[in-house]
């Protein structure tokens, strides 16, 4: 199993002062997959990524990438990992071509073909000065610099941040292009769940420093259902429903989202005697929001005084 895992953490924990940034993280990323690392801002994703790369030391637990301990990565091993972060250093006075030449000196496996392919994909001219590039073009150049060394493991920390839809699509296309090699792994964080739905086979969800899910994308979706219950009059009060995440109440309808929807949950809902009842899957984004959102019941019935005013 560890043979097939390109990233593996066991009990990985990090504190900043007294604040826990990552708590007891057990992550397993299989070789050859596209793995989305999800979670709200400040949930600990970047901290985790920096520990994976040995840029930050863990307070407890272990992390390994490509079979080697993250805390002591040799330069040869680092060269097999591509890491893209927002703070990628670029020299403004260089041209796009020069930036490529400069970077290539550090990598024996540098592929000029990949470099030219990616910059072409983002519509970059080799002679353009780095300082004159738009944000999307800069992102394209950074991606080209990260991909050209042909890394076995690509770690992208929120690569879509601040990109317009066109640049974002180019990014997703580049990621899909990379899957041509079945042994290449992409691990990326993102808030764009539409993109995640397009490219990812696996996902992990980090929330308040704790891992809440780590599974194939479809399993995550399958786990959460939205149940619509119709009633002749006002919906009854809700008893405790196993696995309930959220409930939305309108005049004649209850909409309940549940995790691990099973026979027990179904029975509890049927006991409310609804006139109609339908359970269905939700879109990935809605699933994610429902899974992480505030739990409990929300009412969308305006009281008469509110209507009057």
């Amino acid at each position, binding site marked *: 199993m560890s043979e097939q895992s390109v990233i593996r953490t066991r009990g990985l924990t990090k504190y900043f002062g007294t604040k826990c940034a990552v708590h007891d993280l057990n992550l397993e990323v299989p070789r050859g997959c596209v793995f989305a690392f999800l979670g709200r801002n400040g949930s600990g994703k970047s901290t985790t990524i920096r520990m994976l790369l040995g840029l930050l030391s863990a307070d407890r637990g272990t992390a390994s990438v490509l079979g080697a301990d993250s805390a002591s990565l040799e330069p040869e091993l680092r060269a097999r990992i591509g890491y893209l972060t927002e703070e990628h250093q670029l020299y403004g006075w260089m041209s796009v071509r020069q930036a490529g030449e400069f970077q290539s000196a550090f990598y024996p496996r540098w592929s000029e073909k990949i470099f030219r392919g990616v910059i072409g994909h983002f519509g970059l001219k080799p002679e353009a000065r780095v300082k004159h590039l738009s944000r999307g073009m800069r992102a394209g150049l950074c991606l080209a610099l990260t991909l050209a060394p042909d890394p076995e493991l690509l770690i992208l920390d929120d690569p879509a941040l601040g990109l317009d839809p066109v640049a974002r699509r180019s990014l997703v296309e580049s990621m899909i292009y990379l899957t041509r090699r079945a042994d290449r792994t992409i691990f990326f964080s993102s808030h764009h769940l539409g993109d995640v739905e397009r490219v990812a086979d696996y996902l992990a969800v980090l929330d308040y420093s704790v891992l809440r899910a780590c599974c194939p994308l479809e399993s995550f979706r399958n786990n959460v259902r939205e149940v619509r219950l119709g009633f002749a009059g006002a919906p009854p009060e809700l008893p405790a429903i196993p696995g309930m995440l959220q409930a939305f109440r309108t005049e004649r309808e209850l909409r309940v989202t549940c995790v691990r929807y099973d026979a027990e949950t179904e029975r509890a809902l049927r006991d409310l005697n609804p006139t109609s009842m339908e359970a269905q*899957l939700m879109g990935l984004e809605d699933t994610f929001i429902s899974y992480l959102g505030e739990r409990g019941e929300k009412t969308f019935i305006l009281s008469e005084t509110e209507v009057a005013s």
Partner: protein
Amino acid sequence: MHLNININTGSNVPIYKQITEQVRMAVATGRVTVADQLPSVRALAEALVLNPNTVARAYADLAREGVIETRPGRGVFIIPKRKVLSREEGRRRIEPLINTLISEGLAMDFTPDELQKAFAKNLSRWQQEKGAKQ
């Protein structure tokens, strides 16, 4: 062959299912016919900007249902229909679609009679189109 597949992210229908449904629909309406070739997994994945595994899963489902067949070294083809769904399973799947049609139709103030006529008219037009093609 016109295989216009549209992918909606954020839909409650998973992407692999959007593909299988649209291929099945294209076969049912005669937009693709027996012996037509479909794009390879890789080609369709790149055209639709999707993870190839998603397309592979959709193709695997279609192959299992007897809609397509992969011929090694030659490609993916539509094959003659063989019955794989039991009558009961078919009814179970068609029921919600019919209910959607009825409730939407009634909500738009069509009478039951008008709905029935529209349904019959479209059905016979499809049969004619398919007949003309064969």
